[in-house]
């Protein structure tokens, strides 16, 4: 199994979720993160104190899928998340040694 971890623009979340549902990917976990990269941030000033905000709000999607579906998922996800502008984010892929469904102790792909 593979874990597909994507860091995307927050306002793209709904779109991406729909796209994944479209190809039957239901299980996913989402977290609020802040990202730093090529995308330049913005300036904030509080009573003359200037701050350069270079950590921008992003959303992190994690989903574990069977090896067979990984590519399809990546394609769909990337397509849905793409605006073509700097800051669109990244997708990272990892090996997963085991998956367990807590509810009934299912293991492996059947647990996804």
């Amino acid at each position, binding site marked *: 199994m593979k874990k597909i971890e994507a860091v995307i623009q927050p*306002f793209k979340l*709904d779109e991406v979720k729909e796209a994944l549902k479209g190809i039957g990917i239901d299980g996913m976990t989402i977290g609020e993160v802040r990202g730093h990269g090529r995308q330049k941030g*913005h*300036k*904030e*000033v*509080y009573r003359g104190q200037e701050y350069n*905000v270079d950590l921008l709000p992003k959303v992190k999607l994690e989903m574990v899928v069977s090896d067979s579906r990984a590519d399809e998922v990546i394609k769909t996800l990337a397509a849905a998340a793409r605006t073509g502008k700097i800051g669109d984010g990244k997708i990272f892929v990892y090996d997963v040694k085991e998956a367990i469904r807590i509810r009934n102790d299912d293991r492996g792909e059947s647990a996804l």
Partner: protein
Amino acid sequence: MGSKMKPLIKLCLLTLATTPAALWAQANPDIQARLTAVEAAAKSAQSAGDNAWMLTSAALVLMMTGPGLALFYGGLVRRKNVLSTMMHSFVLMAVVTVIWAVVGYSLAFGGDSSFIGDLRFALLNNVGSAPNADYAPTIPHQTFMIYQLMFAIITPALISGAFAERMKFSAMLLFMTLWALIVYFPMAHMVWGKGGLLSASLGGKIPCFDFAGGTVVHITSGVSALVCALYLGKRVGFPSDAMKPHNLVISVIGACLLWVGWFGFNAGSALNASGLASSAFVATHFGAAAAALGWMLAEWLHNGKPSMLGGISGCVAGLVAITPASGFVRPFPALAIGFAAGIVCFLMVTKVKQMFGYDDALDAFGVHGIGGTLGAILTGVFATNAVNDGFKDSAGKMLPLGWVDGHASQVVNQLIGVAISWGLAIVGTLIILKICDVVLGVRVPKQQEIDGLDITLHGEEGYILES
């Protein structure tokens, strides 16, 4: 004997002539003086009592805008726009104040023409401690002026609910300045100004009852809000994306402060601390309560759940609708007006709006435009001289006020008042928006809208909760 008597009689006559006079001489002047003094004292005491209430009311009405409305609206937008939304209300507390001091007050309450005031009070000339007998004979003129200013502040602020999350700050400032000049001051003069076309108590040709601003405040702002919503168009992602209120807790604070402040708005409109003020206070509270119930009940039947947002939206709708009626109607009609407003505005906001699909972000039209119109009309139905005895014929006989007094035609006058305020709001706002659009452009670029106006327009964030 006879000769003996002469002096006696002389004395007698003398006394006759003098004594009472003498007695008066010693007694009366003193009494006259004390009477005059105590008459002045009573006048001064009356002024103190009325002024105490009116200053309190002025403070309450300012509190309605800041923090009241700022919180109510601020909580309903998305987190990224909370400050820009609160800013709309806040900056008007400053901007309108200056305009008011320079010409606004005079344009609204100077002179006695039909459509707009003159400049006799420009730069607040002749606005001092001495009462302005036309409007409020028992309180300092300055109190009346500052109290009315608070109305001029909140009215444009109400509009901002329609264009929240997408309007340029600079354009907003220009819009509001022009709107005050072109829509609010004329409307205020027509309804409340001496000789105003719709004035009910100061010689208007078409007497229209509007105790605290159903037409002047809520219809003008609510209808202008609709025009803004249509002109600016929908927010990016509306309605597909979730645009939930980011902080209903502060919206509840705001709504409650609006409710409390509204006592100053309506009961204060009696311009004294008399029984009429008490009556308006009661009507205001009843209207708010019944409307909150009405809206929640409608929700309950319709969605299966009453909501906090429904409750606060309802109470505001009720407060809006009771505003023009508050100084004219009995408690139970007040409950009825409120309840009706709760139901009607609920339908407006949830059904009608969806039908037409315009993006009145915070429902300024659905609540203020519709609630104000409903209230203005129902005022014509329920107004009664049993509550407001201020309207008499030449013979001093009390005149019938609304339909319930048998004066059905008043409803027609109310409709005329409604029509005029709708018309002025639509035309005025359209012209102003066009001007702003040409001069500055009214809407922020898409990317700014996505990133949020707090960061892009004001360079700051509402919350920084990371440790």
